[in-house]
């Protein structure tokens, strides 16, 4: 597991990494330890992305993360080792979260306050920054699902617009438009909040 620790430290784990390719091959051959190693590499990013896409609902995000890794395990056989693994995993993540959002929309609406607020721990113990964080999460929650996904992938996960388009299964022009709309709406939301009297 020393190799795994090194991989985690480097924060990599894509198809270009030899050790990671070896892990994927082993996992495809049914090696449970190799699959667990892959899961450990990506679980944090997957859970955080699910949290952002599911409006900070930790329980839903945990359910989503489970489904994502189970789906990943089922479809490992279809994975081309030369493909970018992260894009492939994020595609599963986006699809699972979208399905969950639709199912939740049919069930009921959960407010941001009750949906696991405070479970995502801020890095700094700074109340102003925490308040700002909360405001941005609220702004994200007001966005349509596709715009939120686009901006999360681009601005929080650091994918390029073409990678985000591939993950979302649409054209780059569409994704750029969604990202632009999302940024404009977030700016508007932030300005409205800052002007609001305390």
């Amino acid at each position: 597991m020393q190799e795994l620790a090194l991989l985690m430290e480097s924060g990599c784990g894509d198809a270009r990494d030899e050790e990671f390719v070896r892990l994927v091959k082993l996992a495809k051959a049914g090696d449970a330890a190799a699959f667990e190693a892959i899961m450990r590499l990506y679980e944090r990013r997957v859970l955080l992305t699910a949290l952002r896409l599911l409006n900070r609902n930790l329980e839903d995000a945990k359910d989503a993360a489970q489904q994502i890794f189970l789906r990943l395990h089922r479809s490992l056989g279809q994975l081309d080792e030369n493909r970018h693994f992260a894009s492939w995993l994020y595609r599963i993540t986006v699809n699972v979260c979208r399905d969950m959002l639709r199912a939740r929309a049919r069930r009921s609406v959960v407010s941001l306050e009750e949906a696991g607020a405070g479970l995502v721990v801020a890095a700094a113990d700074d109340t102003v920054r925490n308040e700002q964080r909360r405001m941005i999460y609220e702004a994200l929650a007001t966005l349509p699902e596709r715009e939120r996904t686009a901006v999360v992938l681009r601005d929080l996960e650091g994918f390029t617009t073409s990678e985000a388009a591939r993950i979302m299964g649409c054209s780059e022009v569409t994704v750029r438009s969604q990202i632009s709309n999302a940024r404009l709406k977030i700016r508007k939301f932030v300005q409205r909040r800052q002007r609001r009297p305390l």
Partner: protein
Amino acid sequence: MSCANMSCAKFESLIALYVESDLAERERRLVEAHLERCHGCREFAADIRESQTALKELRMDFVEESALQEVRAEVLFHLSTPRKTAAWPKYAMAAMLLAGLWAGWLWRTRTAVLPEVQPRAAMIAPPPLVAVSAQRGHTARVLKHQRQPAPTFQSEPLVVKMITDDPQVVIYWLVSQNGG
């Protein structure tokens, strides 16, 4: 698309991409040229940069280790236990198998009861296969496919052939059609 033809409102969506370097070279130059001239759009770009900085603060978030452990444990548990399949296909298969066996048994019993009329050929007069028009002096023609009317056996006895385990022993059972 030239700068002169575009209003500031139209530049907003481009500026939202410009602040994160998401524009192609030509569009980037267009926006920069506009920003040089337009104070309002420069302020707008500054606002967007500010909200983007706030948005990117979320990159620093982390989740508690216990949540990760919970997810990992659940996934590994699901993978280690054999997947439960729905029971109904098994029952459906069993029902189909039983139905097949029953149909087979029914077919066998029906065919065993039905009488096999062995000496029928002997009782029927052979059909005239050859018609000869000797009177006119024509060559004889063979009428092979001439259909004959089905014979009736109202008064004929039925013969049931019963085959035993011993191939040397075959029992013939003559049954009167009048119920005798």
